């Protein structure tokens, strides 16, 4: 037990029949930080979050959340966490205000404070003009703001957000993240799952999940620096041909087209990455300009998830 951590887990595992959705996950999530779960569809993000709040029983392993043993002490924990489900889960046939009033009562926020809290939430999440609207008729971004307002109404110590910004435009996403940092300044710990690289980059700490396993874990900056590959960008008039050649070559982890350029990830054991790529293209008699580029988080993501898809490649 460590008071500096909001969430600690060892060997956390959950199976559904023969499928292992979460596979021996070890987590140590520091307090007052934003911790990100990045992973492709079906990698076990939602399942892990559900395990953390006691909605699912682990098949193996142990978890402590805010120093409560889960799932045994899950009921005590519920007053202290806020959970935003991946799917919109407020009542679509009730208005914005009625939904918030319901949540306020469910968390037994004192009657004297209830009104003020709701007004504050409405202002913070720019919902004042929508109070009388049915939640089911809100736009995607409005729904997400309402969900976050509801999840934070009782001032939880820990917020679990499951893909809170899917289907939301970039500007709304920025506003949303500003809110999250604001909450962290106020002392909240936030766990957020996402598909988006730009969001992942904003987290203090990041775990990349794939097939239920944590395949990379650390600060985004560190992950990029310590990446297993070098990045080479190739400019040419015939990007498709170049891709065909490079994909067959050894030590190439991935080739991705970005407009006229190809972004090539080369395994680190290959010393001079851009020289190596240039050599391959010259041998194939293809005209191209190669130069190194700084790694992005997407490169990290591709590298670590590739390893599990095709174990022999690097």
């Amino acid at each position: 037990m460590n008071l500096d951590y909001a969430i600690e887990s060892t060997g956390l595992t959950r199976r559904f029949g023969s499928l292992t959705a979460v596979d021996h996950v070890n987590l140590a999530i520091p307090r007052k930080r934003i911790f990100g779960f990045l992973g492709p569809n079906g990698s076990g993000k939602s399942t892990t979050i559900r395990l953390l709040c006691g909605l699912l029983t682990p098949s193996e392993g142990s978890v402590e959340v805010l120093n409560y043993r889960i799932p045994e002490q899950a009921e005590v924990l519920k007053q202290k966490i806020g959970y935003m489900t991946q799917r919109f889960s407020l009542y679509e046939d009730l208005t914005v205000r009625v939904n918030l009033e319901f949540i306020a009562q469910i968390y037994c926020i004192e009657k004297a404070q209830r009104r003020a809290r709701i007004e504050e939430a409405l202002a913070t999440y720019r919902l004042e003009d929508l109070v009388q609207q049915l939640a089911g008729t809100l736009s995607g971004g409005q729904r997400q703001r309402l969900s976050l307002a509801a999840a934070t109404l009782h001032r939880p110590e820990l917020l679990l957000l499951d893909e809170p910004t899917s289907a939301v435009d970039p500007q709304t996403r920025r506003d949303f993240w500003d809110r999250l940092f604001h909450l962290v300044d106020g002392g909240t710990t936030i766990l957020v799952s996402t598909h988006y690289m730009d969001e992942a980059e904003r987290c203090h700490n990041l775990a990349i999940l794939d097939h239920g396993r944590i395949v990379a874990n650390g600060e985004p900056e560190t992950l990029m620096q310590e990446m297993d590959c070098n990045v080479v960008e190739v400019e040419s008039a015939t990007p498709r041909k170049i891709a065909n050649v490079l994909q067959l070559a050894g030590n190439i982890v991935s080739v991705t087209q970005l407009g006229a350029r190809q972004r090539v990830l080369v395994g680190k054991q290959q010393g001079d990455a851009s020289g190596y790529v240039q050599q391959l293209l010259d041998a194939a008699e293809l005209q191209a300009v190669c130069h190194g580029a700084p790694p992005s988080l997407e490169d990290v993501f591709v590298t670590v998830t590739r390893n599990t898809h095709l174990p022999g490649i690097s």
Partner: protein
Amino acid sequence: MKLSTTRLLAILVKELQQLRRDRLTFGMIVGIPLLQILLFGYAINTDVRHLSAAVADQAGTQLSRQLIADMEATQVIEVIRQVVTAAELKALLDRGEINIGILIPPDFERRLQQQERRAAQLMIDGGDPIILATARSLTNMSFNQRSGSRSNKAAEMFEVRNYYNPERRSSVFVVPGLIGVILTMTMVLFTAVAIVRERERGNLELLINTPVTTAELMIGKIIPYIVIGLIQVSLIMLLGMLLFRVPVNGQILDVYLVSLVFIAANLGLGLVISTVAKNQFQAMQLTFFFFLPSILLSGFMFPFEGMPKAAQYIAELLPLTHFLRLIRGIMLRGVELSQMANDIYALLVFMLLTIGFAILRFKKRLD
């Protein structure tokens, strides 16, 4: 068990607010009693009338024509065809064009004098027990007819009429039972879908992640529907009194008391269903699975005493059986509630068991 009034109230008010917006359910609350009472009160009537009949009057005498006229006067049958032979009657029966064939042989008058031989023949579509029973009573009438003709007293021919009870006693008997049937139908369904619907719409994942307890959730979902059930009871009784002059011979308070317990028992069963069913369709199937034996075995459709012993034992497990005894006792016979304590206890036990089971079975988990 800890109950927070704030949270209980939150669930309760939320349920009512959702209901207010749900026009279909709202319509069902009023629509089902209205439809059922009209259907059972008027259409499904055990006083059978206007069965279609054909006559082969081979005698063709004054007396035979009078017999037919008298039979028609009872309104039980309506002669739609006149034929000549028995074979023609049989053919009409086979084709389902008539329910009853009346054959009057050429020697009708002579047979009437001889007690040991029947004067006329009724050919019946006996597949339907109600028609069969009705036809049997028609043969009784023919006997009256015969004795009447013997003593030459025409007035006796109409004795039969009273037998058919022009006051429609059956609706008086049906309406109290209908309260039970309608409550079974609507109440079980309401709570059966209540939790399943939240699960389907994703609300449940949020709800079980809040401090709300299972008991608060269940009780908060029951209370609004108890109120609705009592409104339905009032509606059915009002319609019964206005349309069919159904009496309330006992205490009206007893009617409500008994209904209250019965409603809670059904809601409890609905909750059990909603902890078992995976989706709303399954919930409806399970509700129906329970509804059918309730209707058939409880004594609503067929007399309880006439059923085989095994069916009676099963029926004792159904809340509707006990409710029917109670409500008929109170409304029709004016019985005191204390005289039927066993049935009240049975309902109370059913209620406590179902609600308790639902609370125990429901887990604030997804697995």
